[in-house]
């Protein structure tokens, strides 16, 4: 059995242990078991990545999984290639750090065992999603992370807002699951296999014919629901109801990137080349993907400017960065998309965990207008947040600069099409907004005059060292980009000298930060006037629309169940009763006491009976005789 299965088995085992033996283990041991399980999974992932380096790619079969007549390749099997190995290492690595952080962060919680069981389960399902060698098994992991995300968003299950946020996240994810199911149906009926390596071959893709675009669209809808892209993004800001480590792991670093992973995994379908020309319909898909990515990036960044809740700012920022990744995937820069996915996992996890420390220190306060003055009291934390912010703003030499740069270059392409130039411009504008709102959050939290009183709750050492490691990774990851892109894309990225494009991106980053610093240093809370808010909050308007639709459907359902169904389900018994009643009335009238009527009735009915039996037997034997 390959070590790759350990990556799945250890978190699963850890989850089971935490769920069932929490009471006998006690708090400290539970956290330790969960963290060690993930550490083991990380080591196994690294080992797998090493094997991939040696053997290139390989498939590990465990057992048969599901048998559907006419479909092959539905096995419980794992695919190890550069893409899945990169994802496995990132997921388990970041997850390990966040598990360690959580041991300190969640120390006062009552349901410690449930938390770690769910967190471990999340890692297991995410790993399954990444390693599955066929689309149907991937859907198991896909739905599994949806469940894990649901259970962790709703971790504080007594709190109504958390409960409804969890429900919303789950339902939107189910919509995505159904879309993915339809992608499976389309591919299965045409190609009769669901194995990635099989159906992504040109001869199989040829069989899809005109349904290629449908299959691609279904995959995209699935990815959009999971990765919070417009218009299926409304669950992500609400998901911040979960504990902060959960937001860091699931709703920033790993799960929400699953959609990007899917796009890259199915890249041949979107870049399906016929002869030399890209098929027009595949091209359509890419254009849609880029436009939606750009729109999400921009609108989410605008919305982040209007937020005052630290975690919601980071949530909209995550959405916006995912938009970048989809832009890259649409442009065919898959290596850049995965590169940004990895660096974003590091710096966004860093930002979220630091935000967690800040929120912890202020006893649960999340409003940046009520923070301030923390810079001198928590120097290390401030430094960690600064590193994360600079990476997010795209300032070299931090990882975010390189990965965002490679995306913008990929989108710009050869610069010959106006569409690409426009999308690049949107990317630059988003970068400007990004560095501004990041700077605003940083300055208001740490350097504006303090808006709070009372004693700070300082973090324990188990909470600070993961920050240090993530900060280190944020600094270092940028330099591995070239190799990563090469291994994902299969070819080296084009060598670019430092030119005007990069300079523009760098300049907007610096400008954004500068504006933020000069505006908010004094404690001023907003730059844009309040009247502009409705324009900034486009994303939230969609949320409102979804909510009112759901509410009216809910009212409709109540009416159906309480008013309509009792009527409908009474129709049949009423029919039966009415026909019985009329028959009996008729029969009563016959009971008149008249001997002549009786004899007539007996005669006619017996004749009728004989006739009926005769014709029935004729009919049946006639029917059978043919």
């Amino acid at each position: 059995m390959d070590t790759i299965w350990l990556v799945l088995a250890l978190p699963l085992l850890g989850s089971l242990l935490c769920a069932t033996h929490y009471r006998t283990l006690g708090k400290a041991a539970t956290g330790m078991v969960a963290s060690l399980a993930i550490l083991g999974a990380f080591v196994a992932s690294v080992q797998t990545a090493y094997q991939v380096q040696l053997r290139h790619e390989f498939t590990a079969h465990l057992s048969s999984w599901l048998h559907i007549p006419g479909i092959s390749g539905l096995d419980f099997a794992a695919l190890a290639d550069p893409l899945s190995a990169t994802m496995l290492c990132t997921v388990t690595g970041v997850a390990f750090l966040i598990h360690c952080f959580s041991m300190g962060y969640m120390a006062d919680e009552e349901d410690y065992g449930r938390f770690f069981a769910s967190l471990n389960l999340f890692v297991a399902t995410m790993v399954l999603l990444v390693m599955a060698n066929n689309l149907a098994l991937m859907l198991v992991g896909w739905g599994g992370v949806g469940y894990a995300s649901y259970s962790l968003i709703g971790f504080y299950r007594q709190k109504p807002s958390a409960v409804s946020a969890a429900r919303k996240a789950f339902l939107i994810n189910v919509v995505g699951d159904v879309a993915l199911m339809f992608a499976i149906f389309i591919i299965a009926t045409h190609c009769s296999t669901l194995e990635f390596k099989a159906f992504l071959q040109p001869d199989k893709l040829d069989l899809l014919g005109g349904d290629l675009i449908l299959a691609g669209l279904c995959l995209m809808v699935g990815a959009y629901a999971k990765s919070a892209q417009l218009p299926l993004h409304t669950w992500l800001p609400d998901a911040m109801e979960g504990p902060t480590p959960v937001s860091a792991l699931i709703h920033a670093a790993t799960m929400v990137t699953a959609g990007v992973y899917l796009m890259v995994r199915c890249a041949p379908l979107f870049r399906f080349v016929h002869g030399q020309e890209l098929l027009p319909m595949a091209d359509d898909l890419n254009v849609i993907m880029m436009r939606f990515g750009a729109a999400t990036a921009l609108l989410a960044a605008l919305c982040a400017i209007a937020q005052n809740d630290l975690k919601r700012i980071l949530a909209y920022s995550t959405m916006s960065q995912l938009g970048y990744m989809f832009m890259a995937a649409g442009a065919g820069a898959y290596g850049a998309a995965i590169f940004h996915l990895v660096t974003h996992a590091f710096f966004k996890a860093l930002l979220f965990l630091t935000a967690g420390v800040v929120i912890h220190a202020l006893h649960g306060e999340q409003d940046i207008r009520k923070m301030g003055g923390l810079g001198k009291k928590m120097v290390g934390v401030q430094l960690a947040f600064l590193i994360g912010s600079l990476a997010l703003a795209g300032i070299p030499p931090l990882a975010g600069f390189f990965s965002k740069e490679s995306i913008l270059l990929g989108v710009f392409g050869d610069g010959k099409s106006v569409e690409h130039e426009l999308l690049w411009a949107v990317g630059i504008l988003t970068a400007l907004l990004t560095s501004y709102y990041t700077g605003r959050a940083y300055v208001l939290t740490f350097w504006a005059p303090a808006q709070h009183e009372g004693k700070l709750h300082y973090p324990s050492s188990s909470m600070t060292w993961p920050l240090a490691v993530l900060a280190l990774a944020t600094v270092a990851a940028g330099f591995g980009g070239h190799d990563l892109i090469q291994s994902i894309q299969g070819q080296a990225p084009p060598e670019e000298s430092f030119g005007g494009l990069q300079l523009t991106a760098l300049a907007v980053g610096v400008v954004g930060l500068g504006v933020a610093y000069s505006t908010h240093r004094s404690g001023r809370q907003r730059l844009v006037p309040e009247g502009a808010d409705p324009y900034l909050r486009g994303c939230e308007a969609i949320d409102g629309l979804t909510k009112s639709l759901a509410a009216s459907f809910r009212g409709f359902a109540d009416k159906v169940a309480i008013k309509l169904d009792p009527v409908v389900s009474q129709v049949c018994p009423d029919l039966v009763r009415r026909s019985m009643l009329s028959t009996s009335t008729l029969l009563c009238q016959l009971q008149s006491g008249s001997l002549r009527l009786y004899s007539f009735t007996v005669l006619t009915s017996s004749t009728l009976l004989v006739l009926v039996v005769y014709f029935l037997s004729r009919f049946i034997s006639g029917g059978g005789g043919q």
Partner: protein
Amino acid sequence: MTSLSAMILLPLLGALFCYQTRDRNAVATARVVALLSLLQSLWALVDGPRQPFSQPWLPQLGINFDLALHPAGLAMLVLTPLLTWGALGLTRPGLERRSEYCGHLLMLLAGLQGLFLADNLGLFYVFFELILLPTLLLVARWGGERGRAAALKFFLYTLMGSLPMLLGILALGFQTGGNGLAFGQLAHLPEELQQSLFWLFALAFLVKLPVFPLHGWQIDLYRTAPAPVAAVVAGAMSKAGAYGLLRVLVGIFPEATAHFAPVVAGLALISILHGGVSALGAPCLRGVLAYSSLSHLGLLSLAVVSGTGSGQSGAILQMFSHGICTGGLFLVVAALENRGFSTEIKHLSGLARSTPQLAALALVLTMGSLGCPGLCSFPAELSMLLGIYTASPGLALLASAGVVLAAWYGLRFYQGTFNGPAQDGLRHADLNESEWVAMLPLVLLCFGVGLFPDLTILQWTRALL
């Protein structure tokens, strides 16, 4: 116990024995019988008597005591004793006339085992009617004030369905001229005959499932029956209808089924949507489960009449997984009622605080029921919807609305009961050992079938095909 007939005889004798025992021993006795019956079925599954059993009974009419294992019935043979076992484990403390109650449950078990084993249409009909009797008695006697009315309504509906079936069987009996009504001998009926007899049979199964608009009995029965009985009825007995669709309609009337498929598919589609929407609005837990059954079994019928291998193989899996989840959820309702909770959703909130273990089991079963990947309904729904998609993509799209609705009302069921602010400071007892033992197998199966559908079920059913 080398013969398939022992699988019917054991619960039957157990039932007769139960009627004689004292009330305080009855539940324990019945549980032993259910357990033995379960072991028998498991043994039959793994390495059992594959030889059909045959004994002349009414040879003039072609009705013989023919028993055989059939892929569609195989999983149900395991599920039925398991649900009976679970239902007995959640018997309401202090229930009066327990020996009768347990006897009736075992009688129902015997009837269902016979139904899923019968290899002769006449025998099938006998068992199809036989299961009605204990159900009626259970609901009428232990179903509270409205139990009698619900039982009467159920009886009338079933009668409306099964009298035509009796006529159909007689007609077939005359037709085949006493050659026998064994399923194997009825395989190649001429198409005209199939079409003329189709509805006589279809009606019975569509009532039993039920599908819209024949579902009037269901909501009343599920609301009034003792919750453990409802678990067996919803989990196992309603599958008699599904089994009939697969075994009789597809097996004996394949051409007619294909011919009338659009009508059945239309009713099934309405059931999916109407059931889903009603489940979302239903005010009580039992109502949610009743309408969700309507919706799920609508999907099952749609998959069966899609006429595709994947649809029918998924339907076989769905019979099993729907039984696990809906049966299990009725047991959860039973556990709640045994603790004195109301089942009106608006009166419930935050029970996870006082009964975390029950909440955990309910969560798994709810997730299983709404088709969460990794749990039992997912492979079934994937396979069924694929079959429906192959037959008609548009129909699959409409049917998939049922999946989204299922997630919605499923969460309403679970969150409404167990999440939210806890209402009172009272701590209610969490699950006791007997309840754990009753429900744990269902939860484990929910995982097992979801993660490895091929190893747990499909390979056995395939071996028989």
